[in-house]
């Protein structure tokens, strides 16, 4: 879903942008050093599960960073954005000092800018395509930090702008699941004029933004504010409702729903299927993070318990693994370890999360792979056996294949293990739809451009299609599904 180049050119040619460009020479712009995100000191932040590590830019820092952006003729950064934010436009609004207009620009294409500014892997997306990286071999413009700045500024200003929407068309559509894919879908559909209801199985709206990502990385108050904006735009939310179970799709059709967007997420956590893995004290990252984030298990007044460990091993190298290991530190682990079978270079986690984890004292045991767990007489995990790995030829993922090194086995004392080696699609919703085409892995088959499934009024996106991806890719799916469902429903009603 790329922005029209003519439109981009037209916007760029507006007088205020031309004036900004002439005000500061590019040579001066490129002399400015990339801003450093102010952070809470590691010694302090490891004591709090709910204090955000990144503190956000100050106004002067943001104005200066925005000045680095040269407002390129050909803004390649936008190509790197799954939701096609008009990046130069919002950054130039910051440079001009019109922060609320910058925020409004973000919201033209992104329903959750304060979230994306915090959790997107910008270094792999927009920032990797920045002119500074591409042509100048310098650090990119801090697009992510600026996005967060504009969204936070608007939230704190109390003058949140509600995007314009078309007049209501009276057509009911449903989004199944309330994670980032659904929220992006709902935001766009309500703008097109639809009557949108988001159905969520859990008791809270937000999906992975609430149960998965910890508050030290994404405060719940930030998510709630974005949800409130969607509510103000007219999106309806139903919790404790599993479409296909609580009511059938047929029931909802009878109630007048004409389109469905299925974004029920990658439910089932994967385990490694090695001896001793079902011992107590070995849990999925989904369980660990859900207990702490959604259920507040670390707080005394909450009923949900969480096992605390002194020696905690987290298996995996993705963002979820980093979230888990840093949570374990905050819950009092004296040794918190990442165990990853490849090397740090292959880690899928955001660079910033790895950096933060290291600053906080997480030990990185890379090129190590668990073989077996041991338990005490009560069944609680007490140790594990691992071997060391070397890297062979690249595998199907393009990363070098980890190979066990013979005779390298060793043992480690652990009393809590969090397995974060990925998730499989949740069968709960697809299993209610026998006619829905799914892959052998259980992901929903869709037309990649339209996100339309084998049942024509059903579209799908996010992890139930991708099997495990990022917030922003899910949001991109939601936007594409909205655009195409809109076209589909319009052509249907015109016939």
């Amino acid at each position: 879903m790329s922005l029209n180049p003519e439109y981009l050119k037209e916007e760029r040619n507006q007088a205020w942008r031309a004036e900004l460009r002439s005000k500061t020479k590019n040579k001066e712009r490129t002399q400015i050093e990339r801003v450093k995100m102010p952070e809470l000191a590691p010694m302090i932040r490891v004591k709090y599960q709910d204090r955000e590590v990144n503190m956000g830019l100050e106004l002067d820092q943001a104005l200066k960073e925005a000045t680095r952006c040269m407002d390129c003729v050909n803004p390649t950064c936008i190509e790197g954005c799954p939701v096609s934010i008009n990046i130069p436009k919002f950054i130039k609004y910051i440079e001009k000092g019109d922060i609320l207009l910058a925020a409004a620009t973000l919201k033209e294409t992104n329903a959750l800018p304060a979230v994306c500014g915090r959790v997107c892997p910008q270094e792999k997306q927009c920032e990797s395509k920045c002119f500074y990286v591409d042509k100048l071999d310098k650090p990119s413009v801090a697009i992510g930090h600026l996005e967060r700045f504009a969204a936070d500024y608007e939230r704190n200003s109390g003058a949140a702008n509600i995007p314009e929407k078309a007049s209501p068309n009276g057509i009911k559509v449903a989004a199944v699941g309330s994670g980032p894919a659904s929220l992006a879908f709902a935001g766009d559909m309500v703008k097109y004029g639809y009557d949108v209801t988001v159905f969520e199985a859990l008791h809270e709206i937000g999906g992975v933004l609430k149960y998965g990502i910890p508050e030290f990385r994404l405060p719940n108050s930030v998510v709630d504010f974005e949800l409130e904006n969607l509510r103000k735009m007219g999106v309806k939310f139903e919790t404790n409702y599993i479409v296909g179970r609580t009511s059938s799709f047929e029931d909802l059709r009878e109630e007048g729903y004409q389109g469905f967007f299925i974004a029920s997420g990658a439910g089932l956590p994967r385990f490694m299927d090695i001896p001793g893995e079902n011992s107590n004290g070995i849990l999925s990252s989904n369980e660990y993070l859900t207990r702490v984030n959604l259920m507040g298990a670390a707080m005394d007044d909450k009923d949900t318990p969480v096992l605390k460990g002194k020696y905690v091993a987290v298996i995996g190298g993705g963002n979820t693994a980093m979230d888990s290991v840093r949570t374990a530190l905050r819950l009092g682990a004296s040794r918190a370890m990442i165990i990853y079978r490849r090397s740090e270079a292959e880690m899928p986690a955001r660079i910033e999360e790895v950096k933060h984890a290291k600053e906080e004292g997480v030990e990185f045991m890379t090129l190590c792979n668990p073989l077996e767990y041991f338990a005490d007489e009560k069944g609680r995990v007490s140790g594990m056996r691992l071997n060391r790995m070397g890297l062979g030829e690249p595998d199907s993922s393009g990363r070098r294949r980890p190979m066990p090194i013979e005779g390298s086995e060793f043992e480690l004392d652990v009393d809590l293990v969090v397995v974060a080696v990925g998730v499989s699609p949740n069968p709960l919703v697809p299993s209610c739809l026998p006619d829905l085409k799914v892959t052998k892995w259980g992901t929903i088959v869709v037309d990649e451009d339209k996100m339309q499934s084998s049942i024509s009024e059903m579209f799908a996106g996010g992890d139930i299609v991708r099997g495990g991806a990022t917030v922003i890719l899910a949001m991109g799916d939601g936007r594409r599904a909205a655009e195409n469902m809109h076209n589909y429903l319009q052509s249907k009603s015109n016939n």
Partner: protein
Amino acid sequence: MNKIIEKTYFSDKVVKLVVENPLIAKSRKPGNFVILRIGEDGERFPLTIAGADPVRGTITLVVQIMGVSSSKLVALEPGDCITDLVGPLGKPTHIGKIGTVLAAGGGVGVAPLLPIVEAFKKAGNRVVTVIAARNKDLIILEDEIRKWSDEVIVMTDDGSNGRQGLVTAGMEEIIQREKIDECIVIGPAIMMKFASMLTKKYNIPTQASLNSIMVDGTGMCGACRVTVGGKTKFTCVDGPEFDAHQVNFDEMLMRLGGYLQEEKRATEIYLQKL
């Protein structure tokens, strides 16, 4: 939504609740469960549905006071609402006309057994039911079970109702007397383990409905994993009913104790607050 319409004490510790939820009342099938949460500080916990009235739009739950969450649920009175209630979850029981079904329920396990007994009876089977508990006060739903069973044997540990002895004694008597085509057992894990060992000896296909620890109940967390036939399964989405002869009950019993210390502490704090 989720308003409590009726509350009946079966004993000091076992309570029947009739709860308004028209959607679940309409869509639930025997064997399904719901996840509940009581209050904003509450935890999510599963309860198997003991019955439903789609016309009234209600479901029936039977709960035994065990710890904090069950105490909070039982503390609710008619007119109060359950904060969160979601379902129906889990695969429903496979009901068919198979001949003679032996149903065995222990303690509050009799509650989820009731709709299954009813469904097997309505499907044209001969149904013989054994219900068991420690003593007569803990025997529940005897009349309802009788209504849908061709024969009922009541067993208590102390002989205060029916016969003295364990559930397996009643089951074995039936098995030795007549041909049983399928058996279903619901109750405490230890009871299901021994019931399953018994029917394995006689080669009778047996289903057990497992009561694992759960958080979300929708397949997301994996807290409820259980080994069935050497493979790890999730009770919430793959079950809750499994081929009992394939279930590793020892591992299940161990896993049920995974939060024992935390639960004990939470109960002490809860009781202090009262």
